[in-house]
């Protein structure tokens, strides 16, 4: 599980994240929703320890990401936005490389790689070099790589961007699978339908602040709108009006 408390981060004059607090529980899918440039990626980057917050903290499975980032990374599976894989390695080698970086080795690693190949339906291309992979295949490899060390908490930044309909559906199934296995899944998206279709909990972020949160139903009823999109628009519109 993740607990973020008053996270803030600025790059020079730009306040990317001003004050973000939330909780993402195990066995649930939490979606970070917001327009481009709202601060979603920066928030996630602080959680998966590649950025250090200017203020606030976050606890991932009991470990403070600011004071012990190495330990926090051990519990985290991360799929950054636009994550690339190594073109000269096969899908299997790409996954195994991350296994080794997580301290795995030998038959245990090989078995885990096969398990992921099976589960993500990669058997067909797992032995091929990644050079000519489609976006969907690449995303699967990157996801398998993020899961190789069986992390408790999984963070996915815009995982469906660039995927076609079938690949998106397959990815949704995978994310639901992670949830049923008891993982804590946090993912970001600017695609409404995606968040509506998947999430148990939604966090709307805008201008580096939490603009609203709750279950999809709660958000819809709060604005009395039939669709999440309308709720989203009226919520942001409200804020724009205030600003």
């Amino acid at each position, binding site marked *: 599980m993740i607990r973020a408390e008053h996270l803030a981060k600025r790059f020079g004059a730009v306040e990317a994240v001003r004050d973000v607090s939330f909780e993402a529980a195990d066995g649930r899918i939490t979606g970070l929703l917001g327009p481009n440039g709202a601060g979603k990626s920066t928030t996630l980057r602080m959680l998966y320890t590649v950025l250090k917050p200017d203020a606030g903290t976050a606890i991932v499975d009991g470990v403070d990401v600011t004071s012990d980032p*190495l330990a926090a990374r051990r519990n985290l599976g991360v799929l950054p936005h636009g994550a690339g894989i*190594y073109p000269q390695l096969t899908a299997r080698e790409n996954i195994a490389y991350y296994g080794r*970086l997580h*301290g795995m080795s030998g038959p245990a690693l090989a078995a885990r790689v096969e398990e992921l190949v099976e589960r993500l339906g990669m058997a067909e291309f797992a032995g091929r070099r990644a050079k000519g992979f489609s976006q969907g295949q690449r995303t699967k490899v*990157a996801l398998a*790589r993020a899961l190789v060390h069986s992390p408790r908490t999984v963070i996915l930044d815009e995982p469906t961007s660039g995927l076609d309909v079938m690949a998106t559906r397959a990815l949704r199934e995978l994310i639901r699978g992670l949830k049923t296995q008891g993982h804590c899944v946090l993912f970001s998206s600017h695609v409404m339908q995606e968040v509506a279709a998947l999430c148990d909990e939604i966090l709307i972020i805008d201008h580096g602040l939490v603009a609203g949160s709750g279950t999809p139903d709660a958000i819809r009823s709060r604005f009395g709108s039939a669709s999440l999109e309308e709720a989203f628009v009226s919520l942001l519109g409200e804020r724009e009006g205030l600003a």
Partner: protein
Amino acid sequence: MIAQLVAVFRKELTETLRDRRSLLSSLVMGPVFAPLLLVGILNLSLERSVSRLDEAVPVVVSGADRAPNLVRFLREQNLAVTLREGDEAGIREWIDADSEQVALLIPDGFGESFNSGEPARLLLFADGSNTRSNRRADRVRAVLAGYSGRVATLRLQARGISPTIAQAVIVDDVDLSTPSSRATLVLGMLSYIILLVTLAGGMYLAIDATAGERERGSLEPLLTTPGPRPQIIYGKVLGAAFFMAVALALVMVSLLISVRKVPLEELGMSANFGPGVAAGIFAMTLPFVAIGSSLLTVVASFTRSYKEAQTWLSAVLLVPTLPIAIAGLMDVEASPALMAVPSLSQHLLIQGLLRNEPLPATFVAISVFSTLALGSALTWLAGRLYERERILG
């Protein structure tokens, strides 16, 4: 911890070995083309500096029947004489058509002047702007001077005067350069070539492992793995170092083969470049790989894209040659202080080996120590760079 370093090192090796184009540019181009370049330059300078005495120099002679003895003398002196009739204007035309030609015109009044003991005039035509024809004209001039000397001697003897009376001074050239030191002058380029090819051997990997990772978007997930980041970077530096060492070994082998094809003996040189010296140069230059790999990694880490990295690294490749060039201009002698300057110390050690005057062991120790110290410092710096969050770009 060390497991991560090994994992990164192995992965960088695998990737580079599988990419044929990069392998070609890092391990094949340098070791193949560098010796070709060297041998080409050597051959050219050989051709320029030596006009081979056994080679018959062609010369066109006009008016040969006015001085048959002279023409016979020219032929005896190994000049390939061609007889062709023509006046001054005609000769100008021939040389216009073929600027390498050298022509000797024996003018009308030659016989009379010669027989009466007056200085007899000869005209030697050559294109002074053409090196080859210049060299031929020099040969012809020397032969003509010889002829003139011989005739003068005979004339003095005929008058009962010792010919030595006409020789007030005699100059003997005593060349103090040993064959090996002259060869070293020409082989001085070797250290440049060796260092450059070594650096180029690891350049691709250094770029791919830093700017390449960032451009592909694989750097960010890599930095979310739990290993200490310096370990990851050390693995990459080690990978670049490995390829540099391989490039160094390959270029030594190819130089060993190619330098034998250069006819250094024709210059009276013994190049002293055998397997033992090649192995020595490899050993002396190997520590430099520590600086090369870490320096390229550090510089590539600052660049934002593959292309930018290539531009910068091509410039950085020249940095290690600077101390060598400056030292070359100032004509320095090896000293303990200079041995503390990486790249220059390797250059001096290589020169020592080539001159067959190996430098003392303390010099070697200073070179190895200072080089490894700077290499470690740069490697540490590379590791630190990846602990900053700005590395994500």
